[in-house]
């Protein structure tokens, strides 16, 4: 056994000075400090852990090195970066040596020497050297993965690489002495701002003794010299006394390494599986919380309710916190791209400048994994196919450097990632030709295709227009796989291109997977959840409005929403369900027939008639009555046929119902005349017809009620809007998304299922799938902007969307819809008094209420009276409030009544006549005052300030 320079035994197969002894990775050596015996380099458990940590840290470092080297290529004199790269390789070399990985140590040694010259400035970094160093990094990576898999660095022969690195070193040689002297002055005196109280690294002198550069006596002498008044740093003094300058530099760097590793201790590595477990548990907790909230709503116990609220708050925060742990900036993938683009550009003979915007945009970790490959492929595509060679670019008048831009940003609950290049764009004709060649489309269709549809061809499997297949792209397995993978995680891909100018590929993916806010709706007696991310607005049409509002255009139902045509999709029809409409809904639709009772009655007939046949019951024709005398008959020949006679289903029910009663009477006649056989026949007919009547009645109920009550949920799928008609609209809830079993995965209309607060299961609608099924969104994702009817605007008009209100004295008032955050309704009992202000508990905060009537000057006298009597809020049981948000704080404007949302022309405004208003305008034939929301809110400001103090205390 040979002792290495650190003073510890060294493995005979690693004859290199164990300079890495003080690297935190080689902790084992510290354990033996002071002991004569040594742990040695034997492979034992501690050693395996050390190797593991070495691998993890080195891999991380290698990624950083990739980035640094590519950066350095365009900034070769950046000393800081050069020094940093040097240090990292130095550490790897040292630890590799200690752990007995001689090949790794040799390769990194060659690299380190090269880097040393670069750092010293005796050699200038150029493309060749960069490539050489990058090659070394690849080799290091290879060996590291060998070590990970087989605990050995492998049998590779890297003499060629080492030879290359050595040759590269033999560039210019400049006198080393002066360079080193200046290095000696370099002392990392600045401590990192967040240095935790870890043991400080040993002083420079001690380090130098420990690495054997000097002996204790030299250090003692130097220190004495310092004490005697020599103001130079210890490193300088030692160099003067003959210590090798390189050793000083090494020691300084080791010191810095130790300091940096101490900083890293403020983060912690967590197993992703562990985080997944936590996410699942939080998901379960959310479900339980929802159930408890349901129970709590039924309870009167204030103590219980308070605790429930607390549980609610804590659960929400916990959920957010855990989800954050899984969020990573997209930079974790993007950081690899500079290297990828550089290598690719070089191999394709092109020049590409990579720009990245929004690399701090965060995504859930699982999503990051999922888009890594697709994004890489898209980038390769851009460099390989998109960007032209420098010659072609020059000929086209473009700069020689192609520009590849990566953009990431959050929008509408989704993460958008764009890959754009300023290359040649997509050659539509070539695409069409290739598609026809590969049999993906017919020549006729290709000729008729729009540009958009042609671009979509690129996503078909088996497509490739590459002239030659490189190992980069062109195998025809590219874009369709990208699309599939992105869609698997719930995202979408889109290509836009301008010939000659460039191409942009847009990827959209949903932000979080597991817990989402959703609107609960009901159709056909079942509940469904609609993810709020697709939700735009809700419209309810009743009575006349309902009948008139639904128009048919080219045989398709549409609704005119503020001038735009909104295609309607009836959820019941798409899901092919018939169900019982609730009593409340029926009443609102003012239909006078109790359908479920009618159904029951008609089924009972069979039983009763059987009893008649058996002699247990007697009934005459008279008693049975005619078909116009039962409840259903009365309705049919009363309101029913009159109002809904035009519906075909009404003709059906009339026929079936009449036939039913005919056979009932026939049965009774036969029984009376003793013809039992005939009676039995009639009975079987009655049986069949009663079932028919019941089934048709279900459809009648559906169509009749739906004619008078239309609930429209306005949704957005893939840039297109449509209205989903449902039976009932319920609340918004936070739901935990659970995947459907494999057997049901093929159903495109459902995105999953969830468990509601009452324990029952509800399906979650997949809005895009539903839209595609209903054909309001073309399968090939046709944007069809031209088809949207745009409101006709005459010159001089300024259209704004306003919220119409009824103000004091029945006057009309309006607020710009942009200032409205939500419309709410509270029972009078929910309004409380606090600090002389009326407030209400709203979404986990205390929201102040401002009465519009109070602020408007005219009624000051009256309002003072009302204020005294505490009756400022209108007398109705329910109070309507317009919620306005200002910098995250909510204020509620109490109004008499919310009327409507309209588009109005504000071009012809009259000046304001009183404080609190901005002017007046004619809307829907009435003079309407425009409220000055700002002034109104500020009038309540003194209370606001108090409120802020209160909340400060609570927080």
């Amino acid at each position, binding site marked *: 056994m040979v002792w290495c320079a650190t003073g510890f035994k060294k493995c005979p197969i690693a004859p290199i000075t164990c300079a890495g002894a003080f690297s935190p990775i080689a902790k084992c050596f510290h354990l033996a400090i002071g002991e004569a015996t040594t742990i040695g380099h034997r492979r034992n458990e501690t050693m395996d852990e050390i190797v593991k940590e070495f691998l993890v840290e080195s891999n991380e470092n290698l990624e950083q090195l990739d980035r640094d080297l590519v950066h350095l290529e365009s900034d070769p004199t950046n000393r800081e970066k050069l020094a940093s790269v040097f240090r990292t390789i130095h550490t790897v070399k040292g630890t590799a040596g200690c752990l007995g990985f001689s090949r790794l140590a040799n390769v990194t040694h060659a690299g380190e020497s090269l880097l040393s010259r670069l750092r010293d400035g005796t050699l200038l970094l150029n493309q060749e050297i960069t490539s050489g160093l990058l090659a070394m990094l690849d080799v290091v990576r290879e060996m590291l993965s060998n070590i990970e898999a087989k605990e050995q660095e492998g049998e590779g022969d890297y003499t060629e690489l080492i030879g290359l690195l050595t040759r590269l070193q033999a560039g210019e040689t400049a006198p080393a002495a002066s360079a080193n002297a200046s290095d000696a002055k370099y002392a990392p005196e600045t401590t990192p701002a967040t240095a935790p109280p870890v043991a400080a690294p040993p002083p420079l002198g001690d380090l130098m003794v420990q690495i054997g550069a000097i002996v204790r006596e030299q250090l003692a002498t130097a220190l004495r010299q310092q004490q005697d008044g020599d103001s130079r740093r210890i490193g300088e003094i030692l160099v003067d006394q003959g210590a090798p300058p390189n050793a000083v530099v090494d020691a300084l760097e080791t010191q810095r390494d130790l300091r940096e590793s101490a900083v890293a201790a403020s983060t912690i590595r967590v197993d992703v599986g562990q985080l997944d477990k936590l996410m699942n548990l939080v998901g*379960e907790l959310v*479900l339980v919380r929802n159930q408890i909230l349901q129970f709590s709503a039924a309870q009167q116990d204030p103590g219980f309710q308070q605790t429930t609220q607390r549980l609610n708050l804590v659960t929400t925060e916990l959920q957010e916190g855990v989800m954050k742990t899984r969020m990573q900036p997209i930079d974790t993938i993007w950081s690899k791209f500079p290297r990828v683009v550089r290598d690719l550009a070089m191999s394709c003979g092109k020049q590409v400048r990579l720009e990245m915007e929004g690399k701090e945009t965060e995504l859930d970790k699982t999503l990051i994994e999922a888009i890594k490959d697709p994004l890489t492929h898209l980038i390769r595509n851009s460099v390989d196919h998109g960007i032209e060679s420098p010659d072609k670019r020059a000929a086209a008048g473009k700069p020689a450097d192609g520009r590849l831009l990566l953009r990431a940003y959050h929008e509408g609950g989704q993460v958008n990632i764009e890959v754009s290049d300023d290359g040649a764009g997509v050659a539509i004709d070539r695409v069409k030709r290739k598609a026809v060649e590969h049999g993906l489309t017919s020549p006729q269709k290709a000729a008729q295709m729009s540009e958009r549809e042609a671009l979509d061809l690129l996503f078909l499997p088996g497509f490739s227009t590459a002239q030659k297949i490189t190992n980069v792209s062109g195998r025809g397995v590219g874009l369709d796989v990208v699309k599939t993978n992105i869609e698997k995680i719930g995202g979408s891909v889109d290509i836009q291109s301008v010939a000659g100018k460039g191409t942009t590929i847009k990827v959209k993916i949903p932000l979080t997977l597991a817990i989402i806010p959703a609107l609960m709706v009901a159709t*056909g007696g*079942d509940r469904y959840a609609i993810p709020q991310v697709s939700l735009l607005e809700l419209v309810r049409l009743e009575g006349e409005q309902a009948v008139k509002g639904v128009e048919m255009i080219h045989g398709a139902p549409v609704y005119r929403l503020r001038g735009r045509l909104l295609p309607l999709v009836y959820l019941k029809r798409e*899901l*092919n*369900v018939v169900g019982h409409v609730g009593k409340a809904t029926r009443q609102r639709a003012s239909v006078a027939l109790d359908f479920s009772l009618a159904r029951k009655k008609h089924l009972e007939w069979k039983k009763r008639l059987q009893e008649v046949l058996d002699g247990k019951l007697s009934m005459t024709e008279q008693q049975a009555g005619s078909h116009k005398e039962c409840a259903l008959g009365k309705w049919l020949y009363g309101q029913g046929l009159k109002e809904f006679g035009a519906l075909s289903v009404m003709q059906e029910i009339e026929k079936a119902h009449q036939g039913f009663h005919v056979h009932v009477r026939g049965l009774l006649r036969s029984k009376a005349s003793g013809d039992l056989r005939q009676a039995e026949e009639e009975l079987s007919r009655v049986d069949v017809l009663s079932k028919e009547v019941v089934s048709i009645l279900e459809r009648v109920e559906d169509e009749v009620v739906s004619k008078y009550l239309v609930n429209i949920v306005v949704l957005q799928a893939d840039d297109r809007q449509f209205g989903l008609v449902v039976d009932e609209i319920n609340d918004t809830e936070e739901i935990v998304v*659970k995947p*459907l*079993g*494999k*057997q*049901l*995965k*093929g*159903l495109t*209309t*459902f995105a999953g*299922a*969830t*468990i509601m607060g009452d*324990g*029952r*299961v*509800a*399906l979650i609608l997949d809005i895009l799938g539903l839209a595609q099924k209903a054909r309001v969104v073309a399968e090939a994702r046709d944007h069809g902007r031209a088809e949207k009817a745009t409101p006709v605007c005459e010159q001089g008009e300024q259209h704004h969307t306003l919220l119409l209100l009824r103000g004091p004295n029945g006057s009309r008032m309006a607020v710009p819809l942009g200032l409205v955050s939500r419309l709410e309704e509270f029972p009078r009992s929910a309004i409380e008094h606090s600090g002389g202000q009326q407030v209400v508990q709203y979404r986990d905060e205390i929201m102040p209420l401002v009465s519009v009537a109070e602020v408007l000057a005219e009624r000051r006298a009256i309002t003072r009276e009302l204020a005294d009597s505490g009756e400022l809020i209108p007398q109705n049981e329910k109070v309507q409030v317009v919620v306005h948000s200002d910098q995250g704080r909510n204020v509620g404007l109490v109004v008499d009544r919310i009327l409507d949302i309209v588009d109005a022309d504000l071009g012809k405004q009259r000046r304001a006549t009183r404080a609190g208003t901005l002017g007046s305008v004619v809307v829907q034939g009435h003079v309407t005052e425009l409220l000055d929301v700002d002034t109104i809110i500020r009038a309540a400001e003194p209370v606001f300030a108090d409120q802020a103090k209160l909340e400060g205390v609570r927080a």
Partner: protein
Amino acid sequence: MADRKQFATFWVDGHFFGVEVEKVQEVIRYQEMTRVPLAPQVVSGLINLRGRIVTALDLRRRLELRDREEQKLPMNVVVRHEDGAVSLLVDEIGDVLEVEESTFEPPPEALSSKARQLIRGVYKLKDHLLIVLDTEKAVKFDAVNSDLA
């Protein structure tokens, strides 16, 4: 190979079936189900099993037997499966029986070809036949292109 096996047994339309005990996660009474529109008839609905959503398949329909009478509520035999648990709806639950391998025979001719695919064989017991259901095959079918709808 052991010469005695244990089976969880149940009745479906008068037929006596069994599933290896190890495959059964649990047996529970009728649970309220949420129907899945557009799914094949075999899928009766989804049930909430202690926070997990489990698909319930009606064995009568899967085996192409007559439908259950309306008033009769089925029982749930929840079987383990690689992608998660699946519940098989049966008429009545029987006991756990131990059977001799020697009484095993391949499936009888009387069943339809489709049903025979789902059956591994029968055990000839004293009074009746115990039909062994192949749970792996029973829970696998393509929801979209199913010809069982």
